[in-house]
């Protein structure tokens, strides 16, 4: 038997060597687990959050944001707003090409804006509604002509509405562009297997190629949070998004895993039906004191501790307390059961009353509402939780078939995106059918206000009314939690939840 040993050793060594070389090749690939599969990969047609994560590597935008939400150059290097606010001139980056070799220039930007505004299937129409036309003023300069001042426009251009697709490829593929997207980002589209993977390969001619350290990126949808973490721990993936708050301590205890987080731009809360159809005519819809009582009966910090292990942020406004748009005069209220009871009595319900809340039938919202149920019960509110599958919940909410609904919003860079469409009269997402002239005037005014200070004042004016009326009772702000292999360096957490790979690399 003795003579077998060296052979065995050699075989083992050989296998190890093979394994090593395989690892070295793999080291240049980055595997990222997403919570769900993206929808169609066309920036003009797509709707999902995870889709935007893929775009962060695939499609460059005219402008980008910093972690502090300041607008910074990406494909546009500079921009000026005309004095009257009705025109924005963009200077464009030179020497940029799309993945198919089409040059990026002012004509390409004009074609992209035209596509976003006119393609039947485009979801970007409302985001770019203020642009009436474009004027190519030079090879690398374009002027956007606006119907009126639009303070939100640059923030829109920092997201999907500002993503540039190859005009050549877009014209050729039409509505099927998403099956084989061609942009100008750091990586090109290679392959997609629905619900399995999206593979992107490094784009050699990328204008910022030296900031990119990977040959390819693979996005894998892994819906189960525990399994996502298990994949990271076993080394099958390098990074994951949306670690469950309940898994945080386990991930932090693992020396091979690094955790990063950022409070999101979105919120979660309860929307009351105050005027949407016949069901809006109920005590909760008619009397703001009941809604205030409900809000006072909730301990938002305890909610965060119990349901999210303290990892999220308690909230009472459409903007998280960390946001510059947060109105500090209304801090997250402390729980006040006595006050809640007093308000109920004042409204004519000294013995309390029932409230039916519809909730998506998934774990977290149900847990959340069960804790809320226990809290408000102490004030005399008998919370009835009606759990619905999400499609049904959405349809009922839109049709006004609800008293209160637990629903949230993923959040937008510009404050307008978190508030205007939910509470202004007749707005698209105003399922509550709340209507108040002061709020309408303030929020419409904020859209055209010239300075940040003016805008802030307008949002504060709206909050004065909304805090009193409480058509939406905000509960908390989700925190994006990423977990990645500790050997991965240079990752920056952004409040928009995206994964930007510029400057990220493997440690030597």
């Amino acid at each position, binding site marked *: 038997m003795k003579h077998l040993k060296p052979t065995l050793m050699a075989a083992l060594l050989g296998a190890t060597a093979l394994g090593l070389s395989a690892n070295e090749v793999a080291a240049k690939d980055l595997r990222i687990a997403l919570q769900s*599969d993206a*929808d*169609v990969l*066309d920036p003009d*047609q797509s*709707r*999902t959050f995870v889709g935007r994560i893929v775009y962060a590597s695939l499609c460059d935008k005219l402008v980008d944001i910093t972690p502090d939400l300041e607008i910074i150059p990406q494909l546009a290097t500079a921009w000026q707003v005309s004095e009257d606010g009705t025109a924005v001139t963009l200077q464009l980056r030179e020497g940029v090409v799309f993945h198919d070799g089409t040059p990026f220039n002012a004509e390409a930007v004009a074609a992209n804006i035209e596509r976003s505004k006119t393609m*039947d*299937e*485009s*979801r970007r*129409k*409302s985001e770019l509604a203020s642009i009436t036309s474009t004027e190519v003023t030079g090879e690398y300069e374009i002027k956007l002509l606006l119907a009126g001042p639009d303070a939100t426009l640059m923030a829109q251009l920092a997201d999907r509405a500002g993503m540039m697709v190859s005009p050549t490829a877009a014209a050729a593929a039409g*509505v*099927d562009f*998403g*099956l084989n997207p061609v942009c100008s980002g750091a990586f090109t589209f290679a392959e997609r*297997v*629905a*619900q*399995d993977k999206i593979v992107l390969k490094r784009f050699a001619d990328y204008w910022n190629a030296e900031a990119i350290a990977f040959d390819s990126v693979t996005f*894998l*949808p*892994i*819906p*189960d949070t*525990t*399994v996502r973490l*298990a*994949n990271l*721990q*076993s*080394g*099958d993936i390098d990074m994951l998004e949306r670690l469950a708050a309940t898994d945080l301590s386990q991930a932090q205890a693992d020396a091979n895993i690094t955790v990063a987080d950022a409070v999101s731009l979105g919120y979660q809360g309860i929307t009351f039906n105050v005027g949407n159809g016949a069901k809006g005519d109920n005590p909760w819809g008619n009397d703001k004191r009941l809604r205030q009582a409900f809000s006072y009966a909730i301990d938002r910090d305890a909610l965060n501790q119990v349901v999210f292990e303290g990892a999220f942020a308690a909230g009472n406004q459409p903007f998280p307390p960390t946001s510059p748009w947060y109105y500090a005069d209304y801090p997250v209220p402390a729980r006040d059961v006595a006050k809640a009871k007093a308000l109920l009595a004042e409204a004519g319900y000294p013995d309390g009353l029932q409230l039916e809340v519809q909730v998506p039938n998934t774990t977290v919202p149900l847990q959340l509402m069960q804790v809320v149920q226990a809290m408000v019960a102490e004030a005399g509110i008998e919370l009835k939780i009606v759990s619905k*599958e*999400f*499609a*049904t919940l*959405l*349809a*009922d909410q*839109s049709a006004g078939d609800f008293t209160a609904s637990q629903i949230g*919003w*993923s959040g937008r860079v510009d404050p307008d995106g978190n508030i205007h469409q939910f509470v202004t009269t007749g707005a*698209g*997402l105003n399922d509550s059918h709340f209507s108040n002239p002061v709020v309408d005037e303030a929020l419409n005014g904020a859209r055209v206000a010239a300075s940040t200070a003016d805008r802030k004042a307008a949002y504060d004016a709206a909050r004065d009314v909304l805090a009193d009326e409480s058509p939406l009772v905000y509960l908390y702000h989700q925190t994006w939690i990423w977990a990645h292999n500790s050997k991965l360096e240079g990752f920056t957490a952004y409040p928009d939840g995206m994964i930007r790979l510029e400057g990220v690399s493997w440690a030597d």
Partner: protein
Amino acid sequence: MFLFLTRRLLIAVPTILLISIFVFALQKLLPGDPLLVLAGEERDPQVLELLREKYRLNDPLVVQYFTWVTNALQGDLGISLRTNQPVSELILQKLPVTLQLAAMSMLFALTIGVPAGILSAYKKGSLTDYIANVIALSGLSIPNFWLGIMLILLVSVKWQLLPASGYVPLSEDFGQSLRTMLMPSFVLGTALAATMMRHTRSAMLSVLSADYVHTARAKGLRERRVVLKHAFRNALTPIVTLTALLFGELVAGAVLTEQIFTIPGFGKLVVDAVFNRDYAVVQGIVLVTAVGFIFMNLLADAMYFILNPRLRGL
């Protein structure tokens, strides 16, 4: 036999048609608007209306159904509302995955379940029988998702022996493909093995007490031959039926197992499609699985002829 199978095949046609009507109608009965789900956070009424027109969701249901059937007969199963991918392409992507998972799970189920069933029937009332029953019951009672997660934590995270999840096509890397499918097919297979074992056991028990088995023994045949050749062959009929039925079930998708191991098969696709009200995808998959199921049953019927000489005269 030919006549019998032809008759079966002819019955399959109205069955499939009925299934297609059921699926179509039941889906439309579900509350919720596909386009509202599709729109997600961006509900532009104009775009929604336009898409409703495009996907012909405003047409009367009967018209929608006939449009779909006519296209389906020509091989066009429509496109996914969510990803714009053609449904037939999605099915072609998923079918090999699902078949591989189903086949490997069935292999586990048969190699564990059948021998265990024979053994426990043969040693009825013994400790072996008792242990086999306990194991079978555990296989039935342990939820797939729990076993799956435990296996991932133990085998992948702690021992780092197998990939935690995901899927590699057989054509890409044969070995790796088997490795990724090992745990999920084991999880599915153990649950089926339990059913398989119980059925094998009861079939064997009834056969073992039959007269011809006594005769065989009286002729002095070796015990091994009596059990495996004489008894087992006749006990096979119910096992074949069960295998066909269970295989059909496996093809319809093992939702939880696919979810835990992130296997891009039918189960996951169809569940997501139902939640998203992606009608074309649901209809396409149900149609394909229904056809598969019927085919498996036909196969089982054909197997009876091979197994049971008495049927050959038919």
